[in-house]
Structure formats: C-alpha cells, structure tokens
C-alpha cells in the first residue's frame, strides 16, 4: 500500500525501505524527508544490533543426544500416514467403493420403493444364519455386531480419518456412515455387502477408469 507522494512513509513502506525495495516515487520522499530518513535509520540500527545476537552454540554432545531423543520418540510412533497409506494399493478403490456404497444404500429405500426386491443377494460373504435375519424385535446393535457383512464395512472404515477422506473428496460428517447403516434393514445390509464384495473382486476398476 503506497501513501501519497508527500505523506510520510507508512509502516510497510519503512520495512520496504529497510529491505531496499521501496517504490521509486516514495524513495524520493524518503530522501527529502528528514523525519522518515531518521526513522528508517533508527530501525536499521536496531536491526543491525539484533542481527549480531547469535544463538549460543550448545554443548558439543547436545546434537547427538538431541537426535537420539527425537529418534527414540519417533520410534514409538506409527509410520506417518500409515492409516491412509494402506489405502494406496488395492484397498483404496475398495474404500472409495465402500464410501459410495454407503451413499447408495442411504438412497436405496427411496430407489426401491417402487421396485421388486433383488432376486439373489446371497453370497458366501454375506450369508447370515436364518435366526439372525430380519428380526424386527431384536437389538439392532447386537445384530449388527454379529453381522459379517457389516463387519466387512466396519473393518474397512474404522481406521478412516475424516480429514483425509475429506481431502480425497469423500465428504461426510463424522459418524454419518454409522448413522446410515444402523438404519439399514437386513436386505439392505446384504446388498451393501454384495456391492462391496463385487468391488473387492475387481479392486482396480477405479484405477483403470
């Protein structure tokens, strides 16, 4: 921001003058103005005095000890980005598919309102004991805990970081997937697992497209 040519230098202009980057027109003012020149020189002297204040060198053994301490602290940490890194291989498209499937399932009640139920949704992955299927009076949490299909989704999603998923373009509120799936019927969960199973069979489908 430049001040009018005749005005005294503003704060940022004084810093520009110290840096030697002051606008030529303002340099004319600085040269002619004793007040501004004195101010710049005064701050320049302070800067020079400060510049000479070196950080004292720590004891010679310090650096070795420092590196050892950092190395030790880091050794106790998981590999950075590990939670995300595991998705970089075949799991990543599967995870994307899982996220999309959750969205699809959320829409399923609307989509299937006027459609017949799927003719064949059974699979080795999703087969449930008959006693556990569609018990409207059962505890939904206990039922889901025992549900192999949900276990697949849970295993895939439990280590997801919301910020990382958001950065990948998969936006959802924390807990929304759980909220959605808790509301699914047994048929819908089977369908979700079926979709996931299909995706896991062909994990590179996303990459190829």
């Amino acid at each position, binding site marked *: 921001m430049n001040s009018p040519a005749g005005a005294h230098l503003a704060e940022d202009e004084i810093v520009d003058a110290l840096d030697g980057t002051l606008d030529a027109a303002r340099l004319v003012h600085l040269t002619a103005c004793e007040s501004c020149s004195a101010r710049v020189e005064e701050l320049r002297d302070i800067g020079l005095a400060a510049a000479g204040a070196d*950080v004292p060198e720590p004891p010679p053994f310090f650096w070795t000890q420092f590196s050892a301490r950092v*190395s030790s602290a*880091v050794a106790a940490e998981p590999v950075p980005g590990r939670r995300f890194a595991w998705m970089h291989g075949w799991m990543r498209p599967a995870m994307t598919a899982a996220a999309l499937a959750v969205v699809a399932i959320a829409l399923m009640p609307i989509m299937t309102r006027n459609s017949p139920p799927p003719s064949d949704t059974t699979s080795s992955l999703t087969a449930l004991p008959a006693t556990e299927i569609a018990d409207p009076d059962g505890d939904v949490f206990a039922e889901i805990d025992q549900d192999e299909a949900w276990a697949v989704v849970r295993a895939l999603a439990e280590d997801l970081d919301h910020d990382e998923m958001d950065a990948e373009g998969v936006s959802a509120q924390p807990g929304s997937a759980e909220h959605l799936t808790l509301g699914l019927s047994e048929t819908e969960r089977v369908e979700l697992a079926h979709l996931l199973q299909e995706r896991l069979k062909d994990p590179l489908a996303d990459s190829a497209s």
Partner: protein
Amino acid sequence: MSADALSLQQRLVRPASAAARRSGSALAMTAEDDATLVEQCLAGNSAAFDALVERHRRQVYHVCYRFVGNHEDASDLAQDAFLRAYRALHTFKGNSAFGTWLYRVAVNVCLNRVSGKQPATEPLERREHQDVKGESPDRTILRQERAATVRAAIARLPKKQRATMILRMYHELPHEEIAAILGSSVGAVKANFFHALANLKKLLQESSR
C-alpha cells in the same frame, strides 16, 4: 554436512544407488534431497527421518531458542517440533521447501506452547560457548552481554512479532513465506516486523537504564 550425517546418508542410499557407492562418489550421496527422504520415511524407513533431523535440527533449534531464550525450553520445543513434523509428514506435499514446512511446524509449536509471559532467559555464564578468534576477553564479554540482552528483549516481544522478527531477521525468509507460515497477509507481516523493531528499541532502552 557433518561426517555423521554423511554416513547416515550413505546408509540410506545403499539400496538405491549401488553405482554411486561403487564409484565412492560423495556427491551422489548428497543428491538425496529432502523430498526423497520424506518419501523414504513414508515408506517406513525411519533412518530417513533421522537424516532429515540431522539436516534441519540446527535451524529448528535456533528458531525455538530465539523464541524462548534458553537452551532447555528450546531443546524441548525443537524435539516436539520434529515429532509433530513426523506425525504430519504425509501432509507435506512438496509445494514449498521441506525446510520452510518445518519452520511452519516449529513456529506453530512455539506459538502454541509459549505463554504470553516473559520467558526465563539463561544467566550469562550458561549462554555462550563460542569464542571469536583474536578477540580480547573484555571484548568477548561485552559482545556476549549485548547479544544476551538482545535475545532477552526479542523473547519479550509479542508472539507474532517475535515469530516475524526471528524468521525475517535470522532466517532471512521473504515476507511472503513468513505470511504463509503464520497464516497472515504480507502487509500484516511487514507491520509486525515494523512493530517488532520499534518495540525492540524500547526494550533495549529499558534494559540499558
């Protein structure tokens, strides 16, 4: 580059640069840039992070020392900065130099951990470990006293002014990079620098009375 840092890099490049090793070229070893070390670290090679620490520990420690004015706190802050950097390493996208990114981490650690109170600076006898060749003992003491006074005054500046002053004056970062590190505008950085110098002048005048 120190001998121990070089030997560490030799260990790091061994799997990838057999030809360079055979030729005994130290130059090829120094070609291991920060981005490569970051990649290796994310791949699970913790020695790569050790190399990054050895490369940048002095700069990070200096930032922290100037923030707090004493060795113990600076050492703790620097260690914390590296630990946080390690945890967030997967977020380093290479848009800036690794050193700049590390400055950002270190400054944030300092800004978050350092209270608004005046930090405890060290007594003079613990501050200096360096001699200047050909300098008389009296002159050395005078120089060290001046430097200690300036460092103590800097450590009393408001936090943002302190950070701006340190990064600009001692690490010679351009205003734009400082603005990125502090999450502010270039104009605000210049204003902070101006006020830092003006306040430093007042503090030095007070301490000389």
